[in-house]
C-alpha cells in the first residue's frame, strides 16, 4: 500500500498531504521536510526511486509540482508512477488544464478527487470517467448558500 502522498512545489511549499498511516503531527512535519529536501536535491538525470528507511519513495515532477509517494516493499514502483500519472489526469479532467494555482486555491477539491481515486493507500477505481463523475456528483450535493442557511444543522 502507499504510505503517504505529498505534493510540493519546487520551492518546497507543501500543496497536498495525504497520510494513510497514523503518525503524530511532529513526525509528519519531519517527513515532509525530509522528503522535500531529498527529492529537490535529485538531479533530473536520476531515476525516480529512492530508498528511504524501509520504504521506496517514488516521485515525479509535473511542471512546477513534485508528486512524491512512499511505497512498501512488495509494491510495484513502475505502477506507482502510473498511479501518480492517473491522478494528474484526473485533476486535469476535473479542473480543465490543471496548473499549480488550481491546486493551491482549490486544495479541498484536490483532496476530494483523491479520495475518490485512492482509499487506504490502494487504488479504488481504475476508470477515469467514474472518478470524475463521482466527484462532480458529490459537488452537486453541496448546498448553495441559500440552502445552506436554510437547512437545519442537526
Amino acid at each position, binding site marked *: 500500500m502507499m504510505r503517504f502522498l505529498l505534493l510540493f512545489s519546487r520551492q518546497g511549499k507543501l500543496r497536498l498531504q495525504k497520510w494513510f498511516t497514523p503518525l503524530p503531527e511532529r513526525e509528519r512535519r519531519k517527513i515532509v521536510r525530509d522528503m522535500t529536501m531529498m527529492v529537490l536535491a535529485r538531479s533530473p538525470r536520476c*531515476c525516480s526511486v529512492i530508498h528511504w528507511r524501509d520504504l521506496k519513495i517514488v516521485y515525479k515532477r509535473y511542471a512546477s509540482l513534485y508528486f512524491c509517494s512512499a511505497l512498501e516493499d512488495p509494491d510495484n514502483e*513502475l505502477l506507482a508512477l502510473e498511479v501518480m500519472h492517473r491522478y494528474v489526469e484526473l485533476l486535469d479532467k476535473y479542473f480543465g488544464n490543471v496548473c499549480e494555482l488550481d491546486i493551491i486555491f482549490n486544495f479541498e477539491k484536490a483532496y476530494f478527487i483523491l479520495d475518490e481515486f485512492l482509499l487506504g493507500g490502494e487504488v479504488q477505481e481504475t476508470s477515469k470517467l467514474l472518478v470524475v463523475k463521482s466527484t462532480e456528483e458529490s459537488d452537486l450535493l453541496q448546498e448553495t448558500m441559500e440552502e445552506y442557511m436554510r437547512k437545519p444543522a442537526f
Partner: protein
Amino acid sequence: MSFLDAGIEFAFSFDQLYDRLQSMPAPIRLRELIRTIRTARTQAEEREMIQKECAAIRSSFREEDHTYRCRNVAKLLYMHMLGYPAHFGQLECLKLIASQKFTDKRIGYLGAMLLLDERQDVHLLMTNCIKNDLNHSTQYVQGLALCTLGCMGSAEMCRDLAGEVEKLLKTSNSYLRKKAALCAVHVIRKVPELMEMFLPATKNLLSEKNHGVLHTSVVLLTEMCERSPDMLAHFRKNEKLVPQLVRILKNLIMSGYSPEHDVSGISDPFLQVRILRLLRILGRNDDDSSEAMNDILAQVATNTETSKNVGNAILYETVLTIMDIKSESGLRVLAINILGRFLLNNDKNIRYVALTSLLKTVQTDHNAVQRHRSTIVDCLKDLDVSIKRRAMELSFALVNGNNIRGMMKELLHFLDSCDPEFKADCASGIFLAAEKYAPSKRWHIDTIMRVLTTAGSYVRDDCVPNLIQLITNSVEIHSYTVQRLYKALLDDISQQPLVQVSSWCIGEYGDLLVSGQCEEEEPIQVTEDEVLDVLEGLLASNLSSPVTRGYALTAVMKLSTRFSSVNRIKKVVSVYGSSIDVELQQRAVEYNALFKKYDHMRSALLERMPIMEKTATNGPTEMVQTNGEAEPSGLESKHPPSITQPASQANDLLDLLGGNDVAPVIQTTPAAKPASAGGELLDLLGDLSLSGDPAPQVPVSQPSFLLDGVSSQPLFNDVAAGIPPMTAYNKNGLKIEFTFERSNTNPNIAIITIHASNHTETEMTNFVFQAAVPKTFQLQLLSPSSNVIPALNQGAVTQVIKILNPQKHQLRMRIKLTYTHKGSPLQDLAEVNSFPPQSWQ
C-alpha cells in the same frame, strides 16, 4: 464558469446581505484568505496574517457559530498545510461531521483525516457519526464515511464498525462495494482477528463486471492470503481462485479497446498488476497453482507492449511472479531475459527496477544472472546513484572464483571514481570478495594495497586488524608487502587506515625493508634513517590521528631491535614521554623503561609476531595494540608451524644483530601452557655443549608475569631442605652465589636464588644475568631485583631461577653476565658444574 462557481458567487452575495442583518462581520472567505496570505512578502508578514485569522476563527468557534464553521475549518486546513498549528479545530471537525449538511460533512471528514489521529481519544467520538453515515440514504455520504474509516480508523473504531463494513461489502451498489472492500482491508490490517468475518462476503466478488470492485476485491483477497496460510489454502482449493484470476486476466489482455480503462493501449494495467501479484502469492510453493498460471504468465510476458512505462510495469510484476512461483525453467529463463532487456533500456527507472529484481533472484538463479554480468558491470558507470548502488551490490553477489580477476578490476575502478557514500561499502565488499576468492597471496596484497591507497580513509576500522593479520600470514611476501606499503607512505600520509597498516608493517618488517631484498619486485634502497624519518614524520604530522600516532610510536620502538640506530630511537621515544596525548605518553614512558630498566627483556618483547589465528569472536584486534608486548592470553594455542616460525625469526635476529653487545634474548612466544613450551624453547637452543663455544645461543629468560604452569603456588613455601649454597662465579669483583630450595609442590623443581654482589669501588650497572641448561632440563628465570649492583658489597642483586629436572640428570649450567663497570661494558661467560647433588637428585 461552472455551475458550482456560479453557486458560490450567488451564495456569497447572499452572504453579504445576510451579514448586514448580523452584527458581526462574516469571516473572510477561503479563497480570499488564500489570496491574501499569498501576498505576504516575508515569513513574518505571513505569520502575522495567519495569527490574526486564527484568532478570529477561534472566537468564532467559541461562539458555536455553525453557519461559518465549515468555512473556518476549511481555512484552518489551509493554514495547517502551511505548517501552522490547528489542533483547536479538531472538535469542530467532529461537529461538522455530525451536521446534516453535505458541505459540512465533506469538510468535516477531510479535517478529521488531516487533524485527528488515533492517538487522541477525540477521534473515538467520530465512531457514532460514522456509523450513522454508513447507513445514510445518500451513497456519497456513505462513501465519505467509508473513506474516512478506511484511511484513519483506529483499532477500536474498526472493531465497532466492522459489521457495517461487512454489510456494505455485500451490497449490489458497486460504488459502495469497492470502498467497502478497501475499508475491510484496513480493518484487517488493524485487527487481524476480524479477517474471518469478511470471508463469506468474498464469495462472488470476482464475478463482478465493475473494474473498481474487481480491483479492490483482488486487493482484499491478497491481504487475506498474505496474512493467513489457512485462508490461502482455502482460496486455492475451495474457491479455485487461480482459474478465476487467470480468466479475468485473459479477458483483459484479449479484450478490445475500452476507453474507460485504457492506458496507452493496455487495458486496466492497475488491475492486471494486482492480479499478477495475487497469483504470485497463490503460486508460491504450490505446484498445481503454479502450473495453472504458467500459460497466462508466458502470454503476458511475451505479448505486453514495452514501449511505455505502463507495459514495463506489467512485465516487471510478471517477472517477479515468475521468479517467485514454481515455474518451469523455460519461463524462468524468459523472465531473466526480460530483466536483461530492461538493463539495456534507456529509461533509468526500468534499469533500476531490473537491478533490484536481479538482486532478488541472484541467489536462486545464479547462473542465469551471471550471463548478464557484463551489462550489470556497465551499470556501475551509470550516472544515477540508486542504479550504481544496486549494480555494486549485484556485482558483489556475482563474484566467484572464475571471474574474480576481471570483476575486481571493474570494482577497483568503481572504487576510484564513485561517490564517497559508496566507498566504505565498496571497500568492505572488495575485502570480503578478495578474502574468499583470491587467486594468490600476492594478488590479495596488491588488491588490498590498491584499496588502501584509493579509498584509504573510507575503509572501516575493523579492516585494519584483519589486514594486518592477513599480511602476517602471507609469510613469503613480507618484504614485498612492507616495501609497497613503505612506498605508499612516501606518497601520502593522510589516509589513516593505510598509514596504520603501513606503520605496523614497517615496525614489524623494517629489517626486511632495509635489507635490500625483495621477492617479487625490484628492491628499493632504503636506509634506517630514512625509515625512521618517515615514522617520525607520522608522529609529528597533524594529519595523523591519535591511534595512528600510537601505531607509529610502537613501530619505532620495534625497530630498536631490528635496526642499529638505537640511540635515535631512544631519543624519539623519550620525547613522547611528555606528550599531551595520554595514550602516547604512557606508551613512550613504558618503552623508555624498556630501554633502561628492562633492557634485557626488550628483544624478547619486540620480537617478530607469529602467525595469528583468526578467532571467531573478534579476530586479532588484541594483537595489534599489544604487538611487542605479546601477551600469552591474546594468542591461541600453538600449532607446530607457529613454533618453528619464531625459530627462523630468532635466527634472523641473530644474523642481523651479529656482534651487537646487546644480547638478544630469544623469546619464543610464550604459550598458554608454558610447561610444554619450555621444552620446545630449550630445543631451539640446540645442543648445549660445554666446549666454551661463545655462540650466543642463549638462555631462555621469561618475564615474571608469565607465571608458571609448573606451579602456581608461592615459590618458597617449603623449608629449605638444607641444601648448601655455592659460589657460582667470582671474578673481577663480581661474585655470584647460588642458594637452593626445593618446591614443595613438585619435587622435580629446584629453586635457585642468585645473589650477585660487587666488592669493587664502583658500582656495576646494566647488570644482566642469563643462564642456559642442557636439553633435559627446563629453566625459568624470573626478573631480577635490580640491575645495579652497588659497590663495596653494599647490596646484592637477587634473581630466582627455577629448574625442572624430571630425569634427575646432573645439573649443569652455563651463565652469561653482562654489565657496565667504570664506564665500559663487560661481558663474561662461565660454566657452573659443581652443583650440590641435593639440588638435582
